[in-house]
């Protein structure tokens, strides 16, 4: 693996007007990370953590309030106009919903040709051959290339979406919950396909999901997000075997494992209070944290090293009990 980051995000903040429309709510709060060429970074977190917003901000579908996105040596947030349109073709997104990510009025051939013509400059008469080749690569029969999205199943549509992303010839692929709306067996097919394709084409990927098991399967490195902040990041093996942040540990404990010896026991828990004002400083996680103490209330922890390439944003990182 090359040590040069293909994507380097620095202090990225994305905010939206809050319900009272006077204040702004930070969906992504001063986030920094990098992805190296050829690797897959998994971005995991529960709903509302900002992972989708972060993915959209990196692919420039969402305007960032501040920060820098360095891609191939260029800050995308300082680029504009036709220059930007050319660069963004190298970052392609695979969306969650197979239903709304394809134009229902365009056949597969039209959809793929559009990407081929505008991104790779392929002349129109060669589009059929190129598109058929793409179909084959994602495991679809090229003879159905003139059919329309509603004539395919969810899994097949997702394959078409992958083909479209590849048609643009990207160097970075952002997959936002690509299998969340698919059945287990179809999901397995799509994940295997993504792994094959990324190996064959040496793709760099940002893989966003709420499902830790899938993220573990797909990513070389993983970042855990909570309320707009990255709380832990590290090599996938390290992070899953020795989680450092109490939130990561909580997530891992909460996953039901297909192991009959691990039973779910009766328990009574009170749902966490809907978080009060986030901007009141301190660690965002302290209200749910089992080991928070006084310092957490007035100081916000930054990502600090906990060994090797493993970083954690918690003052008490070293004191987490490791799973057996």
């Amino acid at each position, binding site marked *: 693996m090359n040590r040069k980051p293909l994507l380097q995000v620095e202090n990225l903040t994305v905010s939206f007007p809050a319900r009272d429309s006077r204040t702004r709510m930070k969906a992504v709060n001063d986030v920094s990370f990098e992805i190296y060429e050829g690797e897959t970074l998994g971005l995991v977190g529960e709903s509302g953590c900002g992972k989708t917003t972060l993915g959209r901000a990196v692919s420039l579908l969402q305007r960032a309030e501040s920060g820098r996105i360095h891609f191939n040596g260029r800050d995308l947030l300082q680029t504009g106009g036709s220059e930007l349109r050319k660069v963004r073709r190298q970052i392609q997104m695979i969306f969650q919903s197979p239903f709304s990510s394809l134009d229902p009025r365009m056949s597969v051939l039209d959809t793929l040709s559009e990407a081929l013509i505008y991104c790779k400059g392929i002349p129109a008469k060669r589009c059929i051959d190129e598109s058929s080749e793409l179909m084959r690569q994602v495991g679809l029969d090229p003879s159905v290339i003139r059919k329309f999205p509603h004539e395919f199943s969810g899994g097949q549509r997702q394959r078409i979406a992958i083909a479209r992303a590849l048609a643009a010839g990207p160097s970075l692929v952002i997959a936002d919950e690509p299998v969340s709306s698919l059945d287990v067996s179809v999901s*397995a097919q799509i994940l295997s396909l993504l792994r094959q394709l990324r190996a064959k084409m040496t793709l760099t990927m940002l893989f966003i999901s709420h499902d830790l098991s899938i993220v573990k*399967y797909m990513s070389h490195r993983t970042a855990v997000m909570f309320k707009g902040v990255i709380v832990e990041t590290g090599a996938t093996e390290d992070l899953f075997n020795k989680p450092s942040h109490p939130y990561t540990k909580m997530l891992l404990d909460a996953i039901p494992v297909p192991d009959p010896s691990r039973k779910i026991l009766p328990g009574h828990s009170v749902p966490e209070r809907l978080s009060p004002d986030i901007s009141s400083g301190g660690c965002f996680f302290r209200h749910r944290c089992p080991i928070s103490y006084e310092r957490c209330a007035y100081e916000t922890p930054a990502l600090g090293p906990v060994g090797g390439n493993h970083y954690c944003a918690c003052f008490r990182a070293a004191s987490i009990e490791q799973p057996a």
Partner: protein
Amino acid sequence: MVILDVRNISTTFKLRGTTLRAVNDVSFGLQKGETLGIVGESGSGKTVLCHSIMQLLPRPPADISGSALFGLQDLVSCSSKDIRNIRGNRISMVFQDPQAAFNPYLRICDQLIEPLLYHRRLSRRTAMDKVLSILEETGIPDPARRCRCYPHEFSGGMLQRAMIAMALITHPEILIADEPTTALDVTIQMQILQLLKSLQRQLSMSVIFITHNLGIVAGFCDRVLVMYAGQILESASGDDLFLHTAHPYTKALIRSVPSLHVNSGELYSIEGKPPDLTKEIKGCPFAPRCTYAQGECTEEDAAAGLVGVSHFTSCRRVLKGEISL
């Protein structure tokens, strides 16, 4: 003690000239206090099965045969008056989307009170007390104030708790939960599952838990039915299902799920697609996609047999001992 005895349920839908066989000759029994999981992917018939038992399908176009004995009554063929007395009273249901289960224009307390006023004919005051106590048991903080809120003022996890409260307020004997935690965050999901377990113990209630998540099934259910193409392929205790798997589909399903704790190589992906339910299926419905399939699997009628105590499989090759999974 069997409190629900389901026999030979078959559900077909007549659509524009074709007939769709959604459920094909399904039988099972539910014990008192037991948690029965029904596992299957979309199109397996698990939801249609429960809707058929509870008379929630309009007929026509649905055509349901078979019986589901609950005490002395057959839920499938009893009158609408009778089934209405049972639904929400002795058998309650909880669904995937709590937003859809609540009327957005009514307060939570007004909706929770309804089953008590209708089924138990309690006075308003007594009913309100029960509402407050069930809300507290489902872990909703400050119930007196919260119950006067509207559904949109609740978060997803809390609304799911409220839906469970509404289902349990009449202390039903059976709770049918159809993917109740699929739309929830993983940490909330764990809380809801733990809550269900403890309420189940408290009320000695039986639970039918429909899901596609094998992880939940392993930790939460006593017995499991694996459905595919409208049929039960395997039925076993939770332990047996994972430790002594007796059907290639179950095995394949287990291997398709990425594991958190085991370092797997490639994910196993099942080739092909589920069968077309509008066509007659001869033999085992999974055979076209099964790596162990042989001629007899599609040429002869579906098999059925036990491989252990209360462990049923429909795989003829497993029953004959030809393969071990």
